[in-house]
């Protein structure tokens, strides 16, 4: 069940104007750098992007914003991103801000064939506006629907030719959830190995969820908040 494609360009070949995309990563950690670059080069437009964050001005999804490829962002935190703010305030960009756990669980729901889930996040806030509320055991929950995305574009640490994936540390974040949720799932990995070389006990995303996989190149892996302690400081 070989799922390999040569590169990002081939992997995203059929992503069309107006597509709904999920993009993995938390901040700039674990983002599909190669696919984002290829989407910018391809110049595909009017995208809806479901992603926890919108990158920074000159990296990650920020690059797609710079090139005005994004019609709508569905995110939980859009942080420090001047171009994002400019497009938002000018009305060029539509933005739906949703709680991070809701974002994660709506991805999981799609991957698990659950049409909707209940979460207490946002009850009593403007997030609840227009949503169905339901009480279970005296606590209120919002009904939130599974996402319906055309493509999930994710980044893993290691992958095999069958599409099995392993993530590294906190670069896992939304990647395995979105991997399960896309109608077509595209995975870029730092290391691509033949099927059989990953420990089947430690696969984070089984290959059944992955349609295309390739080894990415020239990862920058930028750090947003480089924070260090002095060597003699205990904490």
């Amino acid at each position, binding site marked *: 069940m070989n799922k390999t494609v040569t590169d990002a360009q081939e992997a995203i070949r059929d992503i069309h104007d107006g597509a709904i995309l999920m993009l993995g990563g*938390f901040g*700039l950690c674990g983002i599909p750098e190669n696919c984002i670059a290829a989407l910018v080069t391809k110049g595909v437009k009017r995208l809806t992007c479901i992603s926890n964050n919108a990158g920074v001005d000159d990296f990650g999804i920020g690059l797609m914003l710079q090139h005005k490829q994004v019609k709508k962002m569905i995110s939980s935190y859009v*942080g420090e991103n001047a171009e994002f703010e400019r497009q938002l305030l000018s009305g060029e960009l539509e933005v739906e801000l949703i709680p991070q756990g809701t974002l994660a669980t709506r991805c999981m729901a799609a991957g698990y064939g659950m049409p909707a889930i209940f979460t207490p*996040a946002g009850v009593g806030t403007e997030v609840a506006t227009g949503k169905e509320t339901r009480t279970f055991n005296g606590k209120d929950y919002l009904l939130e629907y599974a996402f319906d995305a055309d493509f999930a574009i994710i980044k893993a640490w290691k992958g095999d030719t069958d599409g099995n994936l392993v993530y590294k540390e906190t670069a896992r974040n939304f990647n395995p959830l979105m991997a399960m949720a896309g109608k077509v799932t595209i995975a870029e990995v730092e290391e691509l190995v033949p099927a059989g070389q990953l420990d089947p006990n430690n696969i984070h995303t089984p290959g059944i969820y992955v349609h295309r996989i390739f080894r990415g190149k020239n990862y920058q892996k930028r750090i947003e908040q480089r924070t*260090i302690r002095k060597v003699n*400081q205990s904490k």
Partner: protein
Amino acid sequence: MPLTKEQIAQRIARELRDGYYVNLGIGIPTLVANYIPEGINVVLQSENGLLGMGPFPIEGEEDPDLINAGKQTITTVPGSAFFDSAMSFGMIRAGKVDLTVLGAMEVSENGDIANWKIPGKMVKGMGGAMDLVASAKNIIVAMMHTNPKGESKLLPRCVLPLTGVKCVRKIVSDLAVLDVTPQGFKLLERAPGVSVEEIKMKTAGKLVIEGEILEMKF
């Protein structure tokens, strides 16, 4: 003297109990990790997918794949575990996290909190805050008692868009420690040299004062 940010963190750290799983928000809450009392074992959860967060790395050991929810480079302690964001918020929703410490722009006397949006001015998003406040068993807010204009941030009702309703249990501000009770903000302790009178003046919401209010000691 009002507390420094470090002192607020230090005071909050005294609320930690042995065996707690704790989620620390961005800003002052992050500093709480520096003051965990001797003999108290806690495990720090970072909602981007980590249990067992350790201190910041030393220079040269930063790992771009290893960050906290504030996107800062971090390390792990022995016994740590990584997981995806659905499991992370799953354990939060299921009440497995014993204590959440986070910042606020406003808290109301019934425990509502606002900390994610200033209409027309700031639209960064709620991140994981709405999930945390909707589910945490015990929420402590770390914040300044007043905003830069000197206006109270402890209000009868929040003015800003809410993050969560009736969820805050305790506030540690630069001036005082207060519990959120059915009667309102109950004053428990005051910062060294800060008078009850000053706290009264700077608390717009209902303030309950019973007996003598002791000064915090550092």
